[in-house]
């Protein structure tokens, strides 16, 4: 709120005020109603999606017993872990390099770094499909690399979009930091590495963790790119569920959805709590 003017200036009076409140309440209802309905119906006993016939956990049991879903979940966990670790390292280095140094060609790098964030999923998916189609053989020459196995292609393409998101989050953190701390460390004869490890790294850690959580979320979220590069036998859960959804609704999908939703919401909460904790410490 700008310059200490009372909130009352901004608050409309009379009917408009209540319209504004009512509208906002409705938008929040719009945000959450579908999610609540989905959770509610996942406990439905009936196998008709729209008809409530009693509380039951049978669809969660079916979920646990479904080997295809279980194995696709495992694929997702692997892709998530690998792509997050790689993109956090590369993204953090990129953020440091842009925020803390000046070098020739930096502007161009900065621009390219933004592209994966704004590029539509479909275009990215087409890019990856065409690229691996043309170059898989070349990569397979490298010992230990086998791109016919979908898992590696999935990790490689997830890293391609995650690096950018990680670096944006870390850069936001770096921009708010005082470089004087690092300079003070250098004045006290710390080597650059020591200054980085003891001063910079602990300070940017919340940004790095935030970036990691974002990478995990995006990796779990991705459907389009993954369905273009995944091979038989390495289907991540999002692609598997998407395939099920296109065939139609079933209470089993509701249960799977609620589990995925719970996982992604836990991640969001974790990152929000993290952000809160670190920003309040700063004040």
């Amino acid at each position, binding site marked *: 709120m700008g310059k200490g003017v009372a909130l009352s200036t901004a608050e409309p009076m009379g009917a408009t005020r209540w319209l504004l409140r009512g509208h906002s309440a409705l938008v929040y209802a719009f945000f959450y109603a579908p999610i609540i309905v989905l959770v509610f119906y996942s406990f439905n006993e009936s196998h008709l999606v729209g008809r409530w016939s009693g509380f039951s956990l049978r669809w969660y049991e079916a979920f646990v017993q479904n080997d295809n879903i279980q194995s696709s979940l495992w694929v997702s966990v692997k892709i998530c872990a690998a792509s997050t670790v790689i993109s956090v*390292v590369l993204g953090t280095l990129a953020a440091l390099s842009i925020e803390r140094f000046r070098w020739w060609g930096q502007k161009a790098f900065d621009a390219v770094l933004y592209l994966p964030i704004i590029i539509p999923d479909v275009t990215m998916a*087409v890019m990856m499909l065409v690229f691996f189609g043309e170059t898989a053989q070349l990569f397979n020459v490298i010992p230990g690399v086998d791109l016919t196995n979908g898992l590696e292609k999935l990790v490689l393409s997830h890293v391609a979009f995650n690096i950018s998101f990680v670096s944006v989050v870390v850069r936001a953190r770096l921009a708010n930091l005082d470089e004087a701390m690092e300079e003070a460390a250098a004045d006290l004869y710390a080597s650059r590495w020591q200054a980085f490890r003891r001063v910079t790294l602990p300070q940017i850690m919340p940004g790095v963790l935030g970036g990691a959580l974002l990478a995990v979320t995006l990796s779990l979220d991705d459907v389009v790119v993954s369905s273009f590069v995944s091979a038989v036998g390495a289907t991540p859960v999002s692609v598997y569920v998407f395939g099920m959804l296109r065939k139609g609704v079933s209470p089993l999908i509701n249960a799977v959805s609620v589990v995925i939703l719970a996982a*992604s919401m836990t991640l969001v909460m974790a990152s929000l709590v993290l952000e809160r904790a670190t920003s309040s410490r700063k004040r």
Partner: protein
Amino acid sequence: MDVVVEPGLEHQAERARSRQGLLMGLPAMIYLFVFFVIPLGFVVMYSFATRTRTGRTELAGWNLEAYERLGETVVRAVAFRSLWIAAVTTILSLALAYPLAYFISTRRPATRNMLLVGVMIPFWSNFLIRTYAWRVLLDSDGIFTRIMSGAGLGDGRILFTNKAVIIGLVYGYLPFMVLPLYAAIERIDWSLVEGARDLYASGWSAFRRVVWPLSKPGVIAGSILVFVPSFGAYVTPAILGGNKKGLMGSYIVDQFMDARNGPLGSSLSVLVLVVMLMGTLVYFRQGGRSL
């Protein structure tokens, strides 16, 4: 006593630092070059390549056929339908988000943070699942349909129509609109509004002459962030839409999966990319920073 700075030494130190910066950025740079820039180059090449009879794409016999096909009636219809849906989605999102963003930014800080978290949670929750939730809601004997027919508001069966797609897109991308709008409105210096009111401006004209112009960067940023992904949307029409091949995203996917026309799929992807780049240029011209 003056400190004598040796220009040569200073210069050398600067160059060493610049080299260090370059080295730190290098791994990501190489990675993005190999797994982003080169793939992009391949798509551009494909769009000028030849399609063989069997549906393979041959990187030879460069031609503009795939771009000429963009003028065909079928393709144009797909593009315009997508533009139309993206435009409606953007306008609806703006209409829903503006009052909300205004409401949030005029709360006390504690309330404001809570309300923002309320927007952030769906923003980062699984997109696919959130879209699917509408499938459950709009199902022919789902809650929405029953409420609509119960209230006598006509036939509520809108699943598998463009209306359902628009609802899904608005639902999916609304946070993209709320957050930049909030950022813009929150920054407004309310003493300007107070000044306008002191000069006998009505509440409405103070809004129209002061608040709205000042919040415009947020309006533009939010509109682009909603319009661009809506234009190329694939998941939402696939789950909620009727004609599965009638929109840009699905049409592109179809070129690679069923129609086996790599060049056309690629020229369409380039088109989507151009729309995105134009949007981004406007965004940065308006002083937009990161997301």
